[in-house]
């Protein structure tokens, strides 16, 4: 059963009681929240995701709720709970849904050590995947949103899950995180784009999330082998410049962007070395989305 099959009233009840178990990629998460903005966010952005009905083992148990005690009366705040742990400071209550998303990212990056968790977008076409690591402000998510709207499958917007055993990427097609100007740019891609509520004045500015394509969510079990590593950067006046990136430098950048590199140690070094071996590595500077889409289309047309 999918979230959209539940009906909003039923979904709200499950979330109120902490009985919603949501499957996102390889993870099952029990979510508990009494907040209407979280209920609406999940109804809007996770509509195509599977809900587990039987009592099941969950990988993560999370709760997004107002603090207890006196803090409850200090403005309207919200806390993210992971089991009995509270890993972040409280945020204003209108940031409850982004806090759930950030908390889920944190849960995965700090616990899912069966994968190398790389801070990168990942997309796939024709059985070959592109990994796009990039710092905030590089335009990674906007580019990712455009590409998945033009024939690429979303594997992940934030956390690329690389198997250290076979080098494949496991999909984690969750909502795409957008901020500031990119929200309206992505909204302009077409009427079929679904964007959740805006949260203003966050540490990242105004943030919102885009519903991932249903086809990407459906194919959550289909892994893909990476063929390219591309470091994108939006730069006014750049045109569209694709340049080879030195492999040793690519490996160092991946090390910096892998959340659990230290935890996995030698296994992580070997897996990232193998990844760099098998991929063509590039930097890509662009300032026009149409040119960027053409470039990625040409890339996917290249023979193996």
């Amino acid at each position, binding site marked *: 059963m999918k979230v959209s099959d539940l009906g909003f009233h039923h979904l709200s009840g499950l979330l109120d009681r902490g009985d919603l178990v949501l499957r996102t990629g390889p993870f099952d998460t029990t979510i508990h929240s009494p907040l209407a903005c979280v209920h609406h966010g999940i109804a809007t952005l996770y509509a195509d995701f599977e809900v587990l009905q039987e009592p099941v083992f969950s990988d993560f148990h999370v709760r997004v709720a107002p603090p207890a005690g006196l803090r409850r009366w200090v403005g309207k705040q919200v806390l993210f709970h992971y089991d009995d742990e509270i890993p972040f400071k409280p945020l204003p209550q209108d940031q409850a849904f982004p806090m759930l998303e950030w908390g889920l990212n944190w849960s995965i990056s700090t616990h899912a050590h069966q994968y190398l968790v790389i801070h990168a977008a990942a997309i796939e076409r024709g059985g070959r995947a592109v990994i796009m690591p990039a710092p905030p402000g590089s335009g990674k998510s906007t580019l990712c949103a455009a590409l998945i709207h033009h024939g690429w499958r979303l594997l992940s917007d934030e956390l690329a899950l690389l198997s250290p055993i076979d080098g494949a990427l496991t999909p984690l097609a969750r909502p795409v995180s957008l901020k500031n100007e990119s929200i309206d740019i992505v909204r302009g891609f077409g009427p079929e784009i679904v964007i959740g509520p805006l949260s203003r004045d966050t540490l990242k500015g105004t943030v919102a999330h885009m519903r991932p394509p249903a086809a990407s969510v459906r194919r959550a079990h289909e892994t893909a082998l990476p063929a390219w590593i591309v470091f994108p950067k939006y730069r006014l006046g750049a045109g569209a410049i694709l340049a080879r990136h*030195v492999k*040793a*430098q690519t490996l*160092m950048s991946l090390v910096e962007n892998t959340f659990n590199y230290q935890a996995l140690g*030698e296994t992580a070094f070997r897996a990232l*070395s193998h990844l760099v071996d098998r991929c063509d590595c590039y930097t890509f500077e662009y300032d026009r989305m149409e040119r960027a889409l053409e470039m990625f289309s040409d890339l996917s047309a290249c023979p193996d």
Partner: protein
Amino acid sequence: MWRCDNHKVLLRCWEDACVAYHIESGDTHLLTALSGQVLQKLLVNPAATHELTQTLLPQFPADELNMAGEALEDTLRQLSHLGLIESLA
């Protein structure tokens, strides 16, 4: 005499640069091609500085031969500082 313990160091080289991983410290280092070549040789067998110079000399351009010894000394110092090689002296 210098050595590199292949139980402690992993090395990968591509094109014009290399990356070394120190298993005990968990540190990862970006290395020049010359550093990578030195490390590659020491991972196979310990060697003295003059032996390394002899082996690597052919790779220096003719007009830079007089700088080869100095460059190698610098490289060995840096690799030792990073804990990737050790002196057996």
